[in-house]
């Protein structure tokens, strides 16, 4: 407790409430309001309606939601495999090479997503790898961008795992593969689930790389939301954004809970 006086504390709390309320509360509230708004001419919106949500669940918006969820699941699952694999394999590498490889697996998160998209566009628009205009180039872009997060999350989990578990397993006669499947992976399962849900959330919101590579038939939600707001349909955009937020939060909050209950 840093501030002891009652009035001092009240002042600090008031400041905190204003800062947090204006900066973090207000944005979510106005998007929620806008998603139900029929008109917004004065200070507050009027003629509340479910029209924008109805629109979100039909036609191209529904396709976008489907595309985003599918891309998110596919890219996160693939990134989870690659990141977990890398995090486990890197443990048997010598320290100096290990530091270098660690950097290598983290770097995709440090490069601007637009450049990642541009790179994929340049690399896979020509034979022998012609992926331009396919769904897979979108998934690859997402996979690259989230792989560093899965790698980092699983690495953190492994670093926190007491080495005795694996050593005891090994002394009891468990070979590396058996040990991995029956001891290491089950023990870091919470981190695997967390890695997957964070990857999914990031993939759902990805815009920079997607907008560079997406084919006309595979528009993701953020791209669709941008198209809507760009042509002035901001309430429809707000409704789709709410949908995006809710989907993301559900996966982010519910999945780890489910995994925990299964234990």
């Amino acid at each position, binding site marked *: 407790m840093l501030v002891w006086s009652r009035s001092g504390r009240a002042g600090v709390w008031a400041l905190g409430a204003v800062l947090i309320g204006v*900066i973090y509360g207000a944005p979510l509230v106005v998007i929620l309001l806008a998603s139900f708004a029929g008109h917004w001419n004065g200070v507050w919106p009027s003629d509340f309606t479910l029209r924008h949500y109805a629109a979100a669940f039909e036609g191209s918006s529904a396709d976008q939601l489907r595309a985003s969820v599918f891309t998110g699941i596919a890219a996160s699952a693939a990134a989870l495999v690659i990141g977990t694999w890398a995090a486990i394999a890197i443990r048997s590498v010598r320290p100096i090479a290990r530091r270098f490889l660690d950097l290598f697996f983290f770097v995709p998160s440090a490069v601007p997503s637009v450049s990642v998209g541009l790179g994929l566009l340049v690399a896979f628009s020509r034979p022998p790898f012609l992926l331009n205009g396919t769904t897979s180039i979108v998934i690859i872009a997402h996979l690259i961008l989230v792989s560093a997060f899965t790698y980092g999350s699983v690495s953190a989990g492994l670093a926190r795992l007491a080495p005795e578990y694996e050593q005891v397993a090994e002394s009891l*006669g468990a070979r590396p593969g058996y040990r991995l499947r029956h001891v290491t992976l089950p023990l870091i399962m919470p981190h695997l689930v967390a890695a997957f849900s964070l990857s999914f959330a990031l993939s759902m919101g990805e815009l920079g790389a997607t907008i560079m590579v997406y084919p006309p038939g595979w528009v993701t939600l953020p791209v669709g939301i941008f198209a809507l707001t760009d042509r002035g349909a901001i309430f429809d955009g707000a409704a789709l954004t709410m949908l995006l937020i809710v989907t993301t939060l559900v996966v982010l909050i519910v999945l780890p809970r489910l995994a925990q209950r299964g234990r």
Partner: protein
Amino acid sequence: MASVAAEAGRTGPRLPATIWVVPPVLVIGALFVYPLSLIVREAFSGGTSGFSLATFGDVLRTTAFQRAFLNTIEIAAASSAGCVALGFVIALILAFVPFPGSRAVARVIETYIALPTFLAALAFTFLYGSAGILNEILMQFLGTKLPPVDFLYSPAGVILAEVTVYMPFVMRPLLAAFSTIDAAQIEVASSLGARPFRIVRQVILPAALPALLAGGSLCLLLTVNEFGIVLFIGAKGVITLPLLVYDKAIQEFNYTMACVIAVINVVLSLSLYSIYRLLLVRFGGRCAGLV
């Protein structure tokens, strides 16, 4: 049984376990390093075969590039400074002047990390746009016909949105660092008569400095790379490097120029990332949990 296992352990030459790291390296290499290397080749060949710095020079001379470069630096620096300041204040309140539910508030703010960044830009049009809540209130209040507040479609709007979105990257390591400060230290300091500001300056700030530096440098990197917010705010005068890459490649189909700009952008980002990693190494794993 033990001796059976012992014999089985000896059969066949075993590959070193290090070999297992090869597959993920190949995947990242093929899908990330190889495309980036093609961008670099494209940038330095100027669309022809062979090495040429011609396009590079041309791009560097354009005012569009120069303005984008300056905008990027300016916006990133201002946003990161804002993130550090706001993050420090909010973390300070949450950690040292806690109120019922302050943990939940911290968690809600942290979830912003996982939400799309353009969310802030979109919300700001409703809040601070020319027909936004703030302007409507002020117009009713002041009785003017024109919106009095007009900062959204300028660098300031982008900066405010980026501060909102990236502040949690400073707050999170700060809260972790604050939790390692012994509460007794602060109690002893205040029992010795130190005022809150003095305690913040002499006890809390030194302990939080590594986290502050690491969080700040991470913000610098992320704000240099930010795309969604700039695109959504869509102000004519506010073009950054990532947006310029997009414009050149997708709107103008000028891939060579896009590649040149992308190379410069990537080099800038990787330099900032190196600084961030060096800070992490220097201060140990205390800021772990960030990428």
